[in-house]
């Protein structure tokens, strides 16, 4: 029996029994829907992390020199105690690291935390205060939309100037021009000299809530009360320069702290790779747990299809008898029912894919989770759908193929 003939026959069966077919397909549909939705969301997140997050939060070809790693999932108690015993990073250490960087590597001290800021015309608002150096704007590719960024002279002199994100500007000044006005952080007045271009958000975490001040101003003391530094970011002009910079920094810091060979670093040099590794682990876990549920749906779907196909074989015993009498071989009957089962489940998968795409779209609109459709997941869902149909169809189809034509013809 030709393939298309069988498919047409299967489609006809589905058309005649719409409601029954719908319920038959429900399991596969839901399974595939969740599969597509989960894979799309995970894929979206990982695209986001790889393309936007790592670059926006950490920076391209950038490493961070700090006391302990920032992206360090599953830290054990022992590790944590070791982190706490580490010497702090002081301005002198930062200068030392900076002094050994290849020419062209840019570096900026960064102390950052969430602190309340207020203005004369608004209630306090928590902002991400970043106490840093002038080159920070360059490293992070921050564009000042109105006003200007602060200069290195202002950093040296400890000028109390501030550059704010659009969200901060909207909240603190609500329509007023923020330039030249006063923002208070930790009770200290800062003069707004610039407003950043709108940047959007990462995982629902707004990048427009930044408030950037020179690191030599009191905000640093609020973030790091002991007077040490939280971190220094270094951006290489290329990946090689960055790697050279990391090695140079490690060498000079180990020397400075008198670490003998064989002893681990007591400081952290982190690149965006650490963040990507962290998210890779997260992604794997999400894929595993996110696909376990749809897998159950598919198993249930397969069982439903098997049941329905057994019913179909029983209902159509006479048809099978007629076909056999007219010369259908076992393989003809077998393939007819297998194709019918897989047509059913591929249709279920197709509907599931559509629903999954819609679900992914809804999730990405309603929540900060981004969603990106992975083309391989659609292919996989279709193959999986056909596979489920074949697996579910084998037993009923082989029963149909083995029917005795005489008995089958006698059946009413």
């Amino acid at each position, binding site marked *: *029996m*030709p393939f298309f*003939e069988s498919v047409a026959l299967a489609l*006809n069966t589905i058309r*005649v029994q719409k409601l029954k077919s719908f319920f038959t397909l429900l399991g596969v549909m839901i399974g595939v829907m969740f599969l597509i939705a989960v894979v799309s969301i995970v894929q979206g997140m990982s695209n986001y992390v790889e393309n936007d997050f790592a670059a926006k939060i950490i920076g391209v070809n950038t490493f961070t020199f700090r006391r302990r790693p920032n992206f360090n999932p599953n830290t054990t108690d022992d590790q944590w105690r070791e982190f706490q015993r580490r010497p702090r990073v002081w301005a002198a250490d930062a200068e030392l690291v900076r002094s050994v960087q290849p020419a062209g590597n840019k570096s900026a001290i960064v102390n950052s935390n969430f602190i309340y800021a207020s203005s004369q015309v608004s209630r306090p608002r928590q902002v991400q205060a970043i106490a840093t150096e002038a080159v920070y704007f360059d490293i992070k590719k921050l564009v000042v939309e109105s006003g200007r960024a602060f200069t290195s002279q202002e950093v040296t002199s400890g000028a109390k100037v501030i550059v704010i994100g659009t969200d901060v500007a909207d909240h603190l000044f609500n329509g007023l021009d923020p330039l030249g006005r006063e923002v208070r952080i930790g009770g200290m007045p800062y003069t707004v000299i610039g407003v950043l271009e709108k940047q959007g958000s990462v995982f629902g975490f707004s990048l427009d809530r930044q408030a950037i001040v020179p690191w030599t101003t009191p905000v640093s003391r609020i973030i790091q009360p002991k007077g040490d530094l939280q971190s220094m970011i270094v951006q290489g002009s290329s990946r090689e320069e960055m790697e050279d910079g990391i090695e140079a920094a490690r060498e000079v810091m180990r020397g400075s702290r008198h670490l003998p060979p064989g002893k681990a670093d007591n400081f952290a040099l982190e690149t965006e790779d650490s963040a990507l590794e962290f998210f890779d682990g997260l992604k794997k876990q999400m894929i595993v747990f996110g696909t376990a549920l749809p897998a159950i749906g598919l198993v249930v779907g397969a069982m439903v299809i098997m049941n329905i196909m057994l019913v179909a074989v029983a209902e159509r015993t*006479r*048809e099978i*008898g*007629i*076909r*056999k*009498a*007219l*010369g*259908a*071989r*076992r*393989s*003809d009957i077998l393939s007819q029912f297998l194709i019918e089962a897989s047509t059913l489940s591929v249709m279920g998968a197709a509907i599931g894919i559509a629903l999954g795409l819609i679900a992914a779209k809804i999730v990405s609109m309603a929540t900060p989770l981004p969603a990106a459709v992975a083309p391989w997941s659609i292919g996989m869902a279709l193959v999986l759908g056909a596979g489920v149909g074949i697996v579910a169809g084998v037993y009923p189809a082989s029963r149909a193929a083995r029917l005795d*034509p*005489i008995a089958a*013809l006698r059946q009413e």
Partner: protein
Amino acid sequence: MSPQIEEVGLSTTAERAAVVGAAGSTPDKDWVIVTRGLKREYDMGGEIVRALRGVDLAIRRNEYVAIMGPSGSGKSTFMNLVGCLDTPNAGEYWLSGQLVSTFKDDELARVRNKEIGFVFQTFNLLPRASALHNVELPLVYAGIGSAERKERAMEALTKVQLDNRASHRPNELSGGQRQRVAIARALVNRPAILLADEPTGNLDSTTSEEIMKVFETLANTGQTVIMVTHEPDIAQHARRVVVLRDGLIASDTKREAFSAKLVGL
């Protein structure tokens, strides 16, 4: 040269055995069907039922044969064996020069497809398919392409004067029309034998006559027809009547003799 049925009244077992020839020998190609000592037994829960107990029968090409017998005589079993739907426990069955009693499942399917055209009492059309598609089915399993299939199916429908009903489904046709579709389907693959099982069993007498006329025409144009029936007045349309009783051939007579016997009753 093999003896001719017309010449001998094959009423004794010995005569029939002489006609079918020795076991193992390929029959004369004049004979489309030859059975030698055909036996079929069923195991009904430990009890052995001997449905056929050694049937010797030879049917020539172009013959129109009716097989009769009361229920339990083994005529259905014989019909299933002749139709290659079943295999015998013992004996030989030669169809168109092939020893089909030794064939396996798929070979039997091929023989059913190429050599045999079935006409059933209950028509056995696929209810959801059009008349044309029903007639096409044997060609589908013969692996014939769509265009040629349609053409040949239409041709077969024209032969039974149903070309104007090609797109109708079975439930939109009368009983006689359905049976004619079934006949078209049986003939579409140009089979060696047309095997009809109580073809008029579900039809009224007028329609029965109509169907019998179709059979008559087919027989006149050289089609071998074998018809199983228990109605004597249907059987007398055939040119030869074989009567089975208790799994054996009770008589094998030409129509004239059979009709005379009917009159004598």
